[in-house]
C-alpha cells in the first residue's frame, strides 16, 4: 500500500520532484519536506544512531527531530546536517544518511549494538585506558559522529540584514497570528517570523474554528490582512537567539541571492512576542527508538499536511487528550488504530472516548506500552498487561513542553508546572511576552485573548474559537528499570545511563547532563530534557521543581559558520592597507609582504641575494624607500606640547621649531609601548611619526589623555597618515639626489642638519622634508600629498637611487642597534633597559608610566637589557635562541636573541638580544640554545657600525 493518500494535503500534485536517498531514486511533490517524501515512499530507516548504530526512522515533524539528519547536496549547496523534517524537498536533491558505514538500510557497523553493555555513558572514563586512551581514540571517534565536512564546499553567505522594529512576533501559530493582528491596530512597525514556508503553525494540521472559519481559511485571511497592513513577514526563518536589549538573531533560508542559501538577520525590537508553541513530550517505553515510533502530533502532521499515512496498523499511546485527534484522523484515513491511554476510563473525557470509539478506534484505558517488538521496524507492541498488538506505527504523546528557549536566552526563569508536567515561564522579563502554548496555555480562546492583550490589544477584539481542546496531561510516572529505554535519541542515552550516573553520584542536573551527554546533541534535548528530569527525580526521590534545569543557550538550531560570517570574509574581514604607490612598486618587481596590516615591499626583484644588494647600495650609493605607512599624527594647539610631554617618556616641549626628536612612549606600567620621531613644525604644531603598526593605538592613546586631562579647545589630534606619502632617500649620494628635486629648500647642513625639519614644495603642492635616518646613513624623508608619492619615487629612481625594501632596512638598522619595539622589546622592557635612562632620573613632571619606573622590580639588578651579540663563524644565531646560564648546576634561560642577520657591510653575523644584566656579564662567552642546537656568542654594546654617527652627515 502506498503511504501517500490519493487526496488531501497541502502538496502540489502537479509538480513532481525527483530526489536520491542513499543512492536510490524516489519521487515527491512540491510542498513536501524531505521527511514527508521519504515516508511517502515507505522509507523507514533513514539513519543509524550515534553510538549503537541502531536503525532509526523519522521521529517528528519539526526542529526537535533527533534522527532524520541528512547530508544534503543540491546544486552548489551542501549541508552536511540538514533536518529532513524542516527542509522543503527540491528537484534533484542528493541525500545521504550520515552515520552508517554503507547505507542506513545496510550499515556494516550495526554489530556495535551487540556490545552495548560495554559502552554505556562515560565508558571512555573507565575503559580503553591502557596503555593510552590516544591509541583507541581515533578509531572510536571514527565510529561515532554525525556527518562529514567537505573541505570543497565553501559557499559564502549573504551580508547580514539589520532591522529595527517596534514589535517582533516569533511564530505564526494561532497565538502569533492573533498578536500580529492586534499589533497592526496601531502605527507600529511589526515583524512576524515563521520557521516554515507557510504561516499557521499547528493550525495547518489541527482542526479548529476561529471567527467562524476553519483553521486553514482563517490563516489565509489573516495572512492577507497582515500583508495588506504592511507587516514584514520572514518565512523559512528561525529566530535562533535572543540577546541583550531585545536583539533577535534570525536565520533566513531559501535566500536566492546567497550562495549558501541563508542570511543572518539582527532584529532589534521594542517588544518581542514569543509564540513558539510547544514540543510534544515522548512517552518512555522499551525499544522506543525503533523506526516506526514517532510523536503523535507528527503522525497527524504528515497525514494532514502532506497526505502521508505513516502506518496501516497504528498504536497511539498517550496520557492526554491531544493525541485523540491523531487516532481519529488515522482511523478515518483507513488505518487500524488502537489507542492505549495511561489514564483509567474515569479520567478520560467521555465525549472524546465516544468520538474515537464511534469511529472504530480500539480505546484501551489504563494501558501503557511496555516494549516495542521488531528490529528494523515496528512489528508489534507489547502492553504492560501482557497483550500483544501487531503494528507498524507507534504514535505516542506524553504531553507538551513549552518552547521557552528565547525566553530563557533573555534570562527568564521558568517554573515547573506539576499539573501540566512541564516548565512554563516564571519570572517576568521586560520587553518579552510569551504567549500561546509556549506560555503553557492550552485553551484556544484563552490563548487568542492573551496573545491579543500581550501587544496592548483589547481582549474583546481577540479572535474567537468555539473549539474546545482540553490539553490535560497526566503527570508521567518514570518507567521501570531493566530494559533499554531511550531518553535522548540523538546522543543514544537511555534510562539505565541516567541510573548509572545517579549510582556514581553525578546526580545534580548539570553533572547528569555532562556525564551522560543527555540534551547535548544538536537538538539541544528538545525531546529529552523533561523526561530526563522526570527519571532523575524518581531515582533520587526528589521533586522535579527542586532539580533546576541546565541553561538554554543560543542557537536554538545549529547555524552554519558561513552564515554567521556573512559578507565578512577575506578582504572584507581583514582589509589590508596599501601604499599609495603600490602599482609603481609592482612594476619595479617588488615582492610584497603583510607588515602590521600594511602590504609593503619586502625586497625588489627575484635574486636570491636581493636583500644583500639593497644593503650594499644603501651604504655605498643611495636607496629610495617607501615609508608612507609610518604614522603622521598631527598634534595642534596651545596645549600640544604639554600633551606630548605627558604621553611621551622623552620630553618634547623642549624640542625646537624645525627640529625632530626620537622618543619612546610607555604604558602606565612603565613598559615601552612605541617609539618614533616627533617633528615640531611650529610652537603649536607637532607631527608624531610612530611606527606603522601602532598608528591606531597611538591616536587612541593621545586622544585618551587629551580627553582626560586637557581642555578640549586647547589641543586637537588629527591622524594625517593616509594623506601623505613619505619617500625616504638614504645613502652617501642622497643629498645630491634630493638637491635635484628642486623642493625649494636650502639643503646646506647648517640650514637643514640631521634631525631637522623644513617646509618644502613639490611642484605646486606643499611638502615636508625631514633628516631622519633609520639606516644610519645620511637620509631625507620627504612627505608629499599621497597621490604624488609615485611621482616623487620616480624622480628618485630617475636620479639613480636603487629601490630598497623592508628586509634590507631590517639589517641596516640592526647594524646600528636601532630597535623595533615589540621585536627587540618585550612585555617587561623598560626604557632604562635600552640604555635610555635620562628622563627617568631627570624628569620631575608627570608622564605616563613615571611611577612604574621606580618600583623595586624596575630597579632590580638582573633586569634583561638590550645587548649586541657576536658569534664566531658565519652562521647567525637564530632569533629566539635562549641565552643559558648553567652555573647553579641546572640550565636556566637568562634571555634571548631578538634580531639576527648576516651583515653584508660588516662581513659577519650580528644579533641583538635581551639578556639579564646586559653587558655586566662582561664580554665572556655566552651559550645559546635553540631547538636542540647549541651556539656560542659574545656580548658587546648594541651598535656594530659607526657609533659616533659620522655617516649621518657623510
Amino acid at each position, binding site marked *: 500500500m502506498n503511504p501517500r493518500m490519493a487526496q488531501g494535503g497541502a502538496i502540489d500534485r502537479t509538480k513532481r520532484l525527483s530526489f536520491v536517498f542513499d543512492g536510490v531514486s524516489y519521487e515527491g511533490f512540491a510542498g513536501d519536506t524531505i521527511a514527508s517524501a521519504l515516508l511517502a515512499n515507505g522509507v523507514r530507516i533513514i539513519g543509524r544512531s550515534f553510538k549503537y548504530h541502531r536503525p532509526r526512522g523519522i521521529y517528528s515533524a519539526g526542529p526537535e527531530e533527533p534522527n532524520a539528519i541528512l547530508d544534503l547536496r543540491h546544486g552548489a549547496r551542501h549541508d552536511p546536517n540538514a533536518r529532513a523534517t524542516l527542509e522543503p524537498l527540491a528537484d534533484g536533491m542528493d541525500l545521504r544518511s550520515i552515520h552508517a558505514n554503507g547505507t542506513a538500510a545496510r550499515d556494516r557497523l550495526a554489530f556495535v549494538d551487540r556490545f552495548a553493555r560495554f559502552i554505556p555513558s562515560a565508558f571512555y572514563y573507565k575503559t580503553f585506558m591502557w596503555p593510552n586512551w590516544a591509541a583507541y581514540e581515533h578509531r572510536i571517534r571514527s565510529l561515532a559522529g554525525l556527518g562529514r565536512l567537505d573541505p570543497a564546499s565553501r559557499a559564502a553567505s549573504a551580508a547580514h540584514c539589520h532591522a529595527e522594529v517596534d514589535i517582533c512576533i516569533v511564530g505564526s501559530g494561532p497565538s502569533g497570528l492573533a498578536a500580529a493582528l492586534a499589533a497592526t491596530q496601531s502605527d507600529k512597525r511589526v515583524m512576524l517570523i515563521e520557521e516554515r514556508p507557510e504561516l499557521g503553525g499547528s493550525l495547518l494540521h489541527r482542526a479548529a474554528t476561529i471567527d467562524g472559519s476553519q483553521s486553514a481559511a482563517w490563516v489565509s485571511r489573516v495572512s492577507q490582512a497582515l500583508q495588506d497592513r504592511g507587516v514584514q513577514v520572514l518565512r523559512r526563518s528561525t529566530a535562533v537567539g535572543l*540577546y*541583550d*536589549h531585545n*536583539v533577535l538573531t534570525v536565520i533566513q533560508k531559501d535566500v536566492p541571492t546567497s550562495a549558501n542559501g541563508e542570511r543572518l538577520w*539582527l532584529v*532589534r525590537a521594542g517588544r518581542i512576542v514569543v509564540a513558539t508553541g510547544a514540543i510534544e513530550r515522548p512517552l518512555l517505553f522499551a525499544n522506543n527508538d525503533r523506526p516506526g515510533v514517532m510523536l503523535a502530533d507528527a503522525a497527524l502532521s504528515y497525514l494532514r499536511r502532506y497526505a502521508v499515512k505513516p502506518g496501516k496498523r497504528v498504536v497511539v499511546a498517550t496520557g492526554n487528550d491531544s493525541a485523540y485527534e491523531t487516532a481519529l484522523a488515522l482511523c478515518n484515513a483507513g488505518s487500524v488504530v488502537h489507542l492505549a491511554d495511561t489514564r483509567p476510563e474515569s479520567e478520560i473525557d467521555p465525549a472524546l472516548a465516544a468520538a474515537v470509539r464511534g469511529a472504530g478506534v480500539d480505546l484501551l484505558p489504563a494501558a501503557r506500552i511496555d516494549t516495542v517488538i521488531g528490529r528494523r521496524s515496528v512489528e508489534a507492541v507489547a502492553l504492560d498487561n501482557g497483550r500483544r498488538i501487531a503494528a507498524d506505527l507507534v504514535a505516542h504523546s506524553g504531553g507538551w513542553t513549552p518552547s521557552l528557549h528565547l525566553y530563557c536566552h533573555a*534570562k527568564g526563569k521558568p517554573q515547573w508546572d506539576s499539573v501540566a508536567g512541564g516548565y512554563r515561564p516564571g519570572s517576568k522579563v521586560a520587553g518579552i511576552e510569551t504567549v500561546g502554548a509556549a506560555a503553557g496555555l492550552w485553551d484556544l480562546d484563552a490563548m487568542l485573548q492573551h496573545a491579543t492583550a500581550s501587544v496592548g490589544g483589547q481582549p474583546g477584539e481577540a479572535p474567537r474559537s468555539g473549539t474546545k481542546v482540553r490539553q490535560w496531561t497526566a503527570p508521567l510516572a518514570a518507567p521501570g528499570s531493566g530494559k533499554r529505554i531511550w531518553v535522548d535519541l540523538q546522543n543514544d542515552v537511555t534510562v539505565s545511563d541516567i541510573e548509572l550516573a545517579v549510582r556514581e553520584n553525578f546526580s545534580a542536573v548539570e553533572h547528569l547532563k555532562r556525564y551522560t551527554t543527555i540534551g547535548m546533541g544538536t537538538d539541544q534535548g528538545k525531546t529529552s530534557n523533561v523526561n530526563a528530569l522526570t527519571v532523575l527525580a524518581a531515582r533520587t526521590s526528589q521533586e522535579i521543581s527542586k532539580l533546576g534545569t541546565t541553561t538554554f543557550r543560543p542557537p536554538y538550531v545549529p547555524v552554519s559558520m558561513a552564515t554567521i560570517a556573512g559578507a565578512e570574509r577575506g578582504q572584507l574581514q581583514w582589509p589590508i592597507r596599501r601604499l599609495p604607490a603600490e602599482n609603481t612598486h609592482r612594476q619595479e618587481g617588488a615582492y610584497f609582504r603583510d607588515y602590521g596590516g600594511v602590504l609593503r615591499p619586502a625586497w625588489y626583484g627575484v635574486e636570491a641575494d636581493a636583500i644583500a644588494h639593497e644593503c650594499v647600495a644603501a651604504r655605498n650609493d643611495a636607496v629610495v624607500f617607501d615609508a608612507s605607512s609610518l604614522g603622521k599624527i598631527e598634534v595642534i594647539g596651545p596645549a600640544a606640547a604639554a600633551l606630548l610631554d605627558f604621553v611621551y617618556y622623552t620630553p618634547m616641549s623642549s624640542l625646537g621649531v624645525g627640529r625632530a626628536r626620537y622618543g619612546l612612549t610607555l604604558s*602606565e*606600567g612603565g613598559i615601552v609601548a612605541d617609539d618614533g620621531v616627533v617633528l615640531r613644525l611650529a610652537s603649536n604644531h607637532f607631527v608624531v611619526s610612530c611606527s606603522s603598526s601602532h598608528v591606531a593605538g597611538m591616536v*587612541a592613546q593621545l*586622544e*585618551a589623555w587629551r*580627553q*582626560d586631562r586637557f581642555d578640549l579647545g586647547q589641543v586637537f589630534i588629527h591622524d594625517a597618515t593616509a594623506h601623505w606619502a613619505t619617500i625616504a632617500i638614504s645613502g652617501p649620494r642622497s643629498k645630491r639626489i634630493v638637491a635635484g628635486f628642486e623642493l625649494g629648500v636650502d639643503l646646506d647642513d647648517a640650514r637643514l642638519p640631521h634631525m631637522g625639519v623644513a617646509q618644502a614644495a613639490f611642484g605646486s603642492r606643499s611638502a615636508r622634508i625631514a633628516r631622519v635616518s633609520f639606516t644610519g646613513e645620511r637620509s631625507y624623508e620627504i612627505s608629499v600629498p599621497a597621490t604624488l608619492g609615485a611621482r616623487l619615487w620616480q624622480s628618485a629612481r630617475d636620479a639613480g637611487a636603487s629601490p630598497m625594501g623592508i628586509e634590507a632596512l631590517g639589517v641596516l638598522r640592526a647594524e646600528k642597534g636601532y630597535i623595533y619595539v615589540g621585536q627587540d622589546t618585550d612585555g617587561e622592557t623598560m626604557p632604562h633597559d635600552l640604555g635610555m635612562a635620562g628622563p627617568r632620573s631627570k624628569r620631575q613632571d*608627570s608622564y605616563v608610566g*613615571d*611611577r*612604574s619606573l621606580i*618600583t*623595586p622590580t624596575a630597579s632590580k639588578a638582573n633586569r634583561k637589557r638590550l645587548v649586541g651579540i657576536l658569534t664566531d663563524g658565519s652562521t647567525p644565531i637564530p632569533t629566539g635562541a635562549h641565552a643559558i646560564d648553567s652555573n647553579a648546576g641546572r640550565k636556566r634561560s637568562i634571555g634571548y636573541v631578538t634580531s639576527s642577520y648576516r651583515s653584508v657591510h660588516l662581513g659577519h653575523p650580528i644579533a641583538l638580544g635581551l639578556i639579564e644584566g646586559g653587558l655586566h656579564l662582561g664580554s665572556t662567552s655566552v651559550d645559546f640554545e635553540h631547538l636542540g642546537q647549541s651556539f656560542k656568542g659574545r656580548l658587546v654594546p648594541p651598535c656594530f657600525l659607526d657609533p659616533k654617527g659620522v655617516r649621518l652627515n657623510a
Partner: protein
Amino acid sequence: MQQFPCPWCGKRAEIEFRYAGDAGVKRPERSADDTAWAHYLHFRKNAKGPAKELWIHSAGCGRWFLLSRDTLTHEVAGSEPMA
C-alpha cells in the same frame, strides 16, 4: 548586542563602542607608595551589579563618556560626559 546612549550621538549599537574600564579611577601622584600605585595599575572594583563605566564611541564621535550600567542584568541607567 547591547545598545548604549552616546551623550552626543544618541542610541547606538554596542559594536560602535570600546570599553575603557571603571569610571572614577584617580591617577595617584608620583609620591604614592608602591601599594597605592599597584592598586591604580591592577585593582578595579569589578562591580557585580550597578556600575559606572567608561566607554569610548570609537566608531562614532570618538568621545569618552560615563555609562551607568548593571553588569549583571545589562540594564543601562544612563550616560553622561566625563566630569
